[in-house]
C-alpha cells in the first residue's frame, strides 16, 4: 500500500526534491553541507549520490554569494533550491533575499521570473541559544515579494516543497527542526506520517484545519501546531473543543480561513514561536478584527516567545517558548473570562 507508506518530515522533503530533480533537469540544490553531509537537517539526504556534485553543490560559507548566485541562475533558466542552514543567519545575506530575489519580478514589471526556493531551518527548543533557535517568519512575511511556507507534518512538507519548486516565484520554505523526525532530536510522533509516493502539490496559501472544534480557534504554524494539538487533546478532556488552524503559509496568508474559524468559535488564540511584537501574532489578530470583529466574544490572546533573545539555559528557554501548558492556560482563562 503506497498510500499507507510512512515517512518522517525530513525524508518527505528530501523525496520531494529528488522527484523534482528527476523530472526537471533545471532543478539543482546548493548550500553549505548539502552534499556529502546531506544537509545538517537532512533535507538533501541522498541527493549527492543520486544526482552528482554538479546538481548538488556544497558551497563556501558565503551566503550573500551563493544566494545571489541562485537568483542569477533562476533568472537564466534554472530552478535552484538554495539552503540557508539556519534562518538565524539571514543577517549576512538578507539584501539578496529581500531586496533582490523578492523584488526583481516587480522591478521588471513582470518580465523577469525568479523561480527559486530558499530552504531554511527554523525553531528552538533544544538549547541552541540565541543565534540558532529563532523562527523569524514574521519578518520574512513582512517583506513583500516572497512566499513563505512553513510545513508542520510530512504530508504537507512534501506537497509544499513540490509546489514551491514549481512555483515561478521565490518561495522561502521554512522547516521547523522539531517536526522533521530526526533521530537526534527529541522524538516527536507526529513527525512521521503517511506520505504518498507519487509527486503531489499542497497549494501554497491555504491553511489546514488540523483539528476541528467549536469553542475556541487556535491559529498557529510549525511545531506549535503539535503543541496546540497536544493542548487540544487535554482540553477536550475538560470539555473544551478547540479548533486548530495550521496556517501552512504566512504569505499568502489564508485570511478567509482565519475569519471563518473565528466566526464559528467566537474566540481566538494565536500561538507563535516567533517574537511576540510586530509579527505574526499581531497580524493574525488584526486579520480577525478586520474580518470578524462582531463575532469575537473576547479579546484574542497570544501565546508567543517574548521580545527577548532566545536564552540558552534549558529552564529559561522552556519558559520562553510557547508550550502545551501555556496554550492550555490561555484557553482556560479565555473560556472562563469569555
Amino acid at each position: 500500500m503506497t498510500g499507507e507508506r510512512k515517512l518522517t518530515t525530513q525524508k518527505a522533503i528530501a523525496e520531494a526534491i529528488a522527484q523534482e530533480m528527476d523530472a526537471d533537469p533545471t532543478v539543482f540544490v546548493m548550500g553549505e553541507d548539502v552534499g556529502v553531509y546531506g544537509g545538517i537537517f537532512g533535507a538533501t539526504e541522498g541527493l549527492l549520490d543520486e544526482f552528482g556534485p554538479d546538481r548538488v553543490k556544497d558551497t563556501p560559507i558565503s551566503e550573500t554569494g551563493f544566494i545571489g548566485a541562485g537568483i542569477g541562475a533562476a533568472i537564466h533558466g534554472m530552478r535552484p533550491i538554495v539552503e540557508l542552514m539556519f534562518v538565524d543567519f539571514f543577517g549576512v545575506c538578507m539584501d539578496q533575499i529581500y531586496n533582490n530575489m523578492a523584488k526583481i519580478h516587480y522591478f521588471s514589471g513582470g518580465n523577469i521570473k525568479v523561480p527559486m526556493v530558499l530552504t531554511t531551518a527554523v525553531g528552538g527548543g533544544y538549547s541552541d541559544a540565541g543565534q540558532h533557535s529563532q523562527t523569524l517568519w514574521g519578518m520574512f512575511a513582512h517583506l513583500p515579494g516572497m512566499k513563505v511556507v512553513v510545513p508542520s507534518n510530512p504530508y504537507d512538507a512534501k506537497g509544499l516543497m513540490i509546489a514551491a519548486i514549481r512555483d515561478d516565484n521565490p518561495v522561502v520554505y521554512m522547516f521547523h527542526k522539531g517536526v522533521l523526525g530526526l533521530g537526534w532530536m527529541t522524538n516527536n510522533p507526529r513527525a512521521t506520517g503517511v506520505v504518498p509516493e507519487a509527486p503531489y502539490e499542497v497549494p501554497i496559501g491555504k491553511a489546514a484545519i488540523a483539528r476541528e472544534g467549536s469553542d475556541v480557534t487556535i491559529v498557529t504554524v510549525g511545531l506549535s501546531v503539535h503543541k496546540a494539538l497536544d493542548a487540544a487533546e487535554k482540553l477536550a478532556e475538560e470539555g473544551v473543543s478547540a479548533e486548530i488552524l495550521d496556517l501552512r503559509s504566512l504569505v499568502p496568508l489564508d485570511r478567509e480561513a482565519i475569519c471563518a474559524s473565528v466566526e464559528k468559535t467566537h474566540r481566538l488564540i494565536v500561538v507563535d514561536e516567533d517574537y511576540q511584537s510586530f509579527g505574526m501574532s499581531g497580524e493574525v489578530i488584526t486579520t480577525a478584527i478586520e474580518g470578524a470583529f462582531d463575532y469575537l466574544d473576547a479579546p484574542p490572546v497570544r501565546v508567543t516567545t517574548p521580545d527577548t533573545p532566545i536564552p540558552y539555559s534549558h529552564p529559561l528557554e522552556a519558559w520562553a517558548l510557547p508550550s502545551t501548558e501555556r496554550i492550555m492556560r490561555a484557553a482556560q482563562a479565555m473560556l472562563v473570562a469569555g
Partner: protein
Amino acid sequence: MAVPREHLIDMYETMVKIRRFEERIRELYFADKLPAFDIAAGLIPGEMHLAAGQEPVAVGMRPHLKDGDAITATHRPHHLAIAQGVDLNKMAAEIFGRDTGLGRGKGGHMHLFSTEPSFGCSGIIGEGMPVAVGAAMAFKARGTANVALSFFGEGAANQGAFHEAINLAALWSLPVVFVCEDNAYAISVPKTASTAVTDNSDRAAAYGIPGVLVPDNDPVSVYEVMGAAIERARGGGGPSLVEIRTDRLWGHFEGDADAYRTDDFKEDMNERDPLKTFAQRLLADGVLSEADITEIADRMHTEVEAAIEFAMNSPYPAPEATLDHVFSERTVTL
C-alpha cells in the same frame, strides 16, 4: 590587438549615443525642479546617477558581446545598458516612469531589467556581483558559451559581496568577468580613504585569477583587456578581474554640489574627456573625417531624441497597477 575599423567606429558612435542620452536626461531631470530644487518634482523625480565620462568602460566591451551574454550593473547603469543594446525606448520610458518602460514604471533608473539582451542593475552596492556568478552557473549548466559581466564601482570593491562572488566564480571556474569602474570616488569618499590597496586588480591574487589594470580610460585599452578577459571566460578559462580607471565627469547624482572634488581635479578631468580625446584620435588616425563626426552626432542625437519622445509621449501606469507583479501567475500545476 589591432582593433578593426568597424569596431572603432561602433565604439565611437556608442560613446556619442551614451553621452547624448546622459545630457538629455540631465536637462530633463532639472525641468520643473528649479529654481528651488525639489528632488520629488519634475518629469524625472528621484535620484539620478549619470555616467558621462565612463563611456570607455561600456563601449570597450561592446564588440566582444554575444547573444545571450548577461550584464549586471549598478546604480549608474545607463552607459552599460546602451552599450549592450538594451531597447532605448523602453529604457527611457522606464526612467520617465511610464507604462511602456522596461519595468512598466515600477523600477526606475536604478532598476532597469531587460531579458534580451540580459541586463540588470540595482541600487545596492555590490548586489549584482553574485547574480552574475549565478548567470554564469546557468550558462555552464546549460552548456551555452555565454559570459556574465559584472560591473561595479571602486567603492563597491570593499563590500563583502565582492569577496564572496569572486571567490565563488574562481572556485567553480565560471565564465564571469568582474569589472571595476574606478572613478576614484564613492560619492564624496576618495578611493584612498576607502581602499587599503591602490589597485583593485591586485585583489585578484586573493582568488588565484588574473587581475588586469586599465590605467587610462581609453576605449581601445578597454577593448583589448576586455576582449582577452571575455575570450578567456567564454573558452572555459574562468573568471578575471579588471579594474578600469575612469572619470565621473558630473556629480555623484544630479543636484550634487560636488564640493568634495577640487576645481583643479575637475578641470583636469574635463580636459581628458574621453569623448573628445577619442574623436581627436580617430580623426588623427584617419578613421573618421570631420564630416563623419558630424554625421554620427546627428544620427545618435536623433536616435536619443526618438527614445526621449517615445518616453514622454507614453502614458503613466494606472495607480492600481501598484498591486501587479508582486507575484507572477503560476505556469505549472499538477
